[in-house]
């Protein structure tokens, strides 16, 4: 496919720990097309951040790539020399973190930081400054020209996150990766940010890989969704398919748990009892089995493969196999 931007192909990543190898990502495959918004959803600890740091090759020292490729515009990033990787980061692929202070330097003015990002550009300083102000305006910072001289602490949390987005978009990247960018914000700011992201995505025509555990945000923002559980992709597909016709019990339960669609006061809210299995000591069979209320004998014996069910809709569950229905 020519319009594929990012292809994660059978990626497996371990962390070496005192307790042995922790299998943080196992056989992950999915892709992101040009100009598309793909959401990654899953409980904390399921490997979302590991996936992002693997794509960007900003991994912890105890990370071991065991298998697979991360192809960006057809080129395997895992094989790229560090120098080329550095050029790619911040230019073709940008990131926005949960905590915007991870992006901002507290002792430099926002304007200075936005000039620094443009170090490769040959434009005049005045032009770069004008461009910085224009970007601040684009993310909805009022009076951008004047505010360039202010420091990160002089902005509210919501503004800091929008500035982080402005900085990430300065280079007009092909891919913007956002790791829980709204999790620390309150609902009104969260909505402001996702609406802004939607507009910017159209304006800049970049693809977005959006990581969140908030299903409402995923449903509103994304074209396609990848559901992760305990280091594996358990389901992926178009956003409507995933929310209206989930094919994996985990996805279904996750949606059921979201109080956002329980409009009457519930005495008891649905939950998913149990815990994510220990990734350093994985059980055999289906990884969701401990918590699955539809588990069958086969689920203990064999790992269900991620299979194509309909066009673009994949799930890894034995329930989708004909013989299971018998």
């Amino acid at each position, binding site marked *: 496919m020519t319009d594929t931007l990012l292809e994660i192909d059978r990626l497996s990543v371990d962390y070496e720990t005192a307790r042995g190898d922790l299998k943080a990502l196992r056989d992950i495959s999915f892709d992101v097309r040009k100009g598309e918004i793909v959401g990654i959803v899953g*409980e904390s600890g399921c490997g979302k951040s590991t996936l992002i740091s693997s794509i960007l090759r900003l991994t912890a020292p105890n990370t071991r790539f065991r298998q697979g490729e991360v192809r960006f515009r057809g080129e395997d990033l895992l094989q790229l020399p560090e120098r080329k990787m550095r050029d790619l980061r911040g230019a073709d692929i940008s990131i926005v973190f949960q905590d915007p202070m991870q992006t901002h330097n507290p002792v430099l003015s926002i304007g200075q930081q936005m000039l620094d990002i443009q170090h490769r550009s040959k434009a005049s300083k005045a032009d770069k400054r004008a461009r910085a102000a224009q970007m601040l305006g684009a993310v909805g910072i009022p009076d951008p020209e004047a505010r360039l001289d202010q420091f990160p602490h002089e902005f509210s949390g919501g503004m800091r996150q929008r500035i982080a987005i402005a900085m990430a978009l300065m280079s007009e990247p092909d891919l913007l990766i956002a790791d829980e960018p709204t*999790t620390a*914000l309150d609902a*009104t700011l969260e909505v402001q940010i996702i*609406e802004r992201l939607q507009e910017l995505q159209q304006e800049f025509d970049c693809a977005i890989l959006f990581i969140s555990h908030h299903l*409402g945000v995923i449903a509103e923002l994304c074209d396609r969704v990848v559901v992760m559980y305990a280091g594996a992709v358990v389901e992926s597909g178009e956003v409507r398919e995933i929310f*209206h016709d989930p094919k994996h019990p985990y996805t279904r339960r*996750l949606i059921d748990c979201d*109080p956002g*669609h329980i409009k009457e006061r519930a005495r008891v809210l649905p939950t998913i009892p149990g815990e994510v299995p220990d990734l350093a000591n994985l059980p055999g069979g289906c990884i969701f089995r401990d918590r699955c209320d539809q588990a069958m004998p086969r689920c203990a014996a064999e790992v269900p493969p991620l299979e194509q069910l309909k066009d673009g809709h994949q799930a890894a569950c034995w329930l989708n196999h004909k013989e299971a229905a018998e």
Partner: protein
Amino acid sequence: MSLLDVKDLKTSYGPVNVLAGVSFTVEQGETYALVGESGSGKTTVIRAIAGLAPAQEGSVKFEGREIRGASERELRPLRKDIAMMFQDPVGSLSPRLTIRSLITEPYRIQGMKERDLDAEAKRLLEMVNLPAHFADRYPYQLSGGQARRVGVARALALEPKLILADEPTAGLDVSVQGELLNLMNDLRERLGLAMVIITHNLNVVRHVADRMGIMYLGRLVEEGTTEAIFKEPRHPYTRCLLSANPEPDPDARLERIALKGEPPSLLRRPKGCEFRERCPFAQEICIQTPQWEVANGHGLRCLAPLS
């Protein structure tokens, strides 16, 4: 007499007027939610109730007794009746202490030396549905949901009558969030606890709160039963908050009312209605100052309420 009666509570930090007169009551066994954007003063309200933040004016009555400005010695017995649950209960506690020490610490602080702390730890863990052997664990060995349960256990230690919970489910996964809310609902029923819960997650409020108050710039702008507010919000700010609620349905028809701009600076409170500059429904009359008016148990501070 209400269990908790907060009247015209005012807090300033130097020139920064954080609370500009907050009033509400909480009855025994009732859950009251405070909602509003960050910076609206929610945390300051409950910290002031607990005597952890200053309040220069107003009154806080607990079971009819004035507790605002009480000395530490006077407050001590009350620390038993009012428990705080912090946003990140375990992160705010010492990482070197076992869970046993953490949840029984309130007994030590109260000087209740005669207690069998092992037995208490076991009892408290049981109340929050954690196995007894968790007493020997350390905070870093807990998952997010378990850590919050430990926070609940600690808050319950002294058998309080009122729990003040600051964003108890913030940052939790939905699967675990439900567990915590179910636990809190259950404890409330079994123990007859009253709670004040701060949250910006309106989906949560609907399921836990009997009544709710909406805060803006250190003041309540609307208050009523949770049911009434969700069904028929009358203050434009409440309407904006309710509409800023992403739904787990890609086809949801969102009638979103955008909240313009940022909250104004507390150093320069706007004249007239303080929400005016951001209010999508503002009218000419709104340059006047709206007063707090209550009709049928529904409080409102707006000159042109929605119907």
